[in-house]
């Protein structure tokens, strides 16, 4: 499916979605509350069939956090990007681990690196950081490593 068709279909599914121009793929911005329903629709709609979540990450924009989901379809080979804006002080979003199992691991990584709380996640624990890690989240912009080899 071409980008224009994709846009039309997604607007049909979620009229509130806004599109970001530029970039090679369709770039959708949705509200955190709408996201789970849209995700299910994207996965289950036979014309879209986005079954492959190949990248899940978060960007800290200092004023807010943005969850970035890269989706692809192994059947139609079309790609899209979904962005969900989150409140930086209390970032919360529904988990996708029931739809794409790979989200479980990636969300755990985002949880510890950015402090995003994934609601209804089956196993939201620290994955990479050592047990008992307290304090800030390493990949946020205000985190300064006490020992930074590069800036020595």
């Amino acid at each position: 499916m071409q980008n224009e068709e994709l846009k039309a279909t997604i607007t049909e599914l979620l009229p509130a979605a806004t599109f970001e121009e530029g970039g090679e793929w369709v770039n959708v911005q949705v509200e955190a509350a709408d996201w789970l329903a849209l995700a299910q629709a994207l996965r289950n709609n036979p014309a879209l069939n986005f079954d492959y979540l190949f990248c899940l990450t978060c960007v800290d924009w200092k004023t807010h956090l943005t969850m970035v989901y890269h989706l692809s379809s192994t059947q139609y080979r079309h790609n899209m990007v979904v962005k969900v804006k989150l409140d930086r002080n209390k970032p919360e979003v529904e988990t996708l681990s029931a739809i794409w199992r790979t989200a479980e691991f990636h969300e755990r990584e985002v949880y510890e690196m950015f402090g995003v709380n994934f609601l209804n996640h089956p196993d939201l624990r620290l994955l990479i950081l050592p047990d008992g890690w307290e304090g800030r989240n390493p990949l946020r912009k205000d985190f300064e490593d006490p020992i930074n080899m590069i800036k020595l």
Partner: protein
Amino acid sequence: MVEELGKTMEGDLIINVGPQHPATHGVLHLVITLNGETIKNVEPHLGYIHRSIEKMSESLTYRQFIYVTSRMDYLSAHINNHACALCVEKGLQVEVPARAQVIRVLMDELTRIASHELWWGAMAMDLGALTPFFYAFRERETINEIMEETCGARLTMNYMVPGGVLQDLHPDFQRKVKEFIQLYKRKIHEYDELVTGNIIFQNRMKGVGYLSPEDAISYGCSGPVTRGSGVRSDVRKIYPYEIYDKLEFDEVLETGCDSFARYLVRVREMEQSVRIIEQLIDNIPEGDYQAKTKAVLKLPKGEFYQRVETARGELGVYIVSEGGTTPYRIKYRSPGFSNLSVLNKIATGSKLGDLVAMMGTLDLVIPDIDR
């Protein structure tokens, strides 16, 4: 630990495999719940070699951050560098000279063979056959020497730069690569004799670690792991980059869905890589090896995503740029991380001895998982 797992019952045995263990090839830590010899749950604990390359890259310029990625999946260092260089080029809209493209593809494929070579040896070693490791290294060593001659290093080459490659090919490169292909063709039948055809090996691999195509997709697996389940996933074919769309090679697919299928995919992928090298080695176009770029690179504001096929699967580089000389945020979508997440799924219910076979066929490189 016992309380955490929750599912544990009376009489279960919890053992820690790793961080120092001969089978994990690095500092992977698996907490395994066993019932006798049968695995009930596998729980990976990561982070022993986490260097936060993503955070580091945020304070490095677009020329500098590439070298760090060699340390992610050190066995396909060239391909990691390639992905980053491609992503920066996408942002800069630089046209890479034809010669540089061919050199890059040649290096990528040599790296892929070297990586699979090491995997093959280590895989056999996991299953208790120590000898194949040395035979694999004999071939791998010739590749390393070719790399050393042209790139100046054997493992972390840092040869790809935005706009092309760092240096031109060494004059001996073509001759040595041809010699390697000769050696490879002369020795490849040993792989079948020693390992592939061996009845013990086949029994250890067949039907072990069943991964259905649906699960492979849902868990975000990529590379030989998905292709072993019959799912097309070769980025070189589906989203071609560089000159891969002009080359003749097959995407290796096996439908066994088990460890043996994944094993066969990798062994046959080596042959395809040799095929690609044979097509290119006599047809390296003359010209520049590097496009003219500015001394200080600045990417325009925006987001750039580039995926390539490493020896382990799909590597994605996601650069968010604010228009400065350093990336605002970089995300590496490493193949190993997603491939590891499937381990619990496929290992549950099998024997402890199978776990090493499964980990072997997932081809885990721990720095790639931890980044």
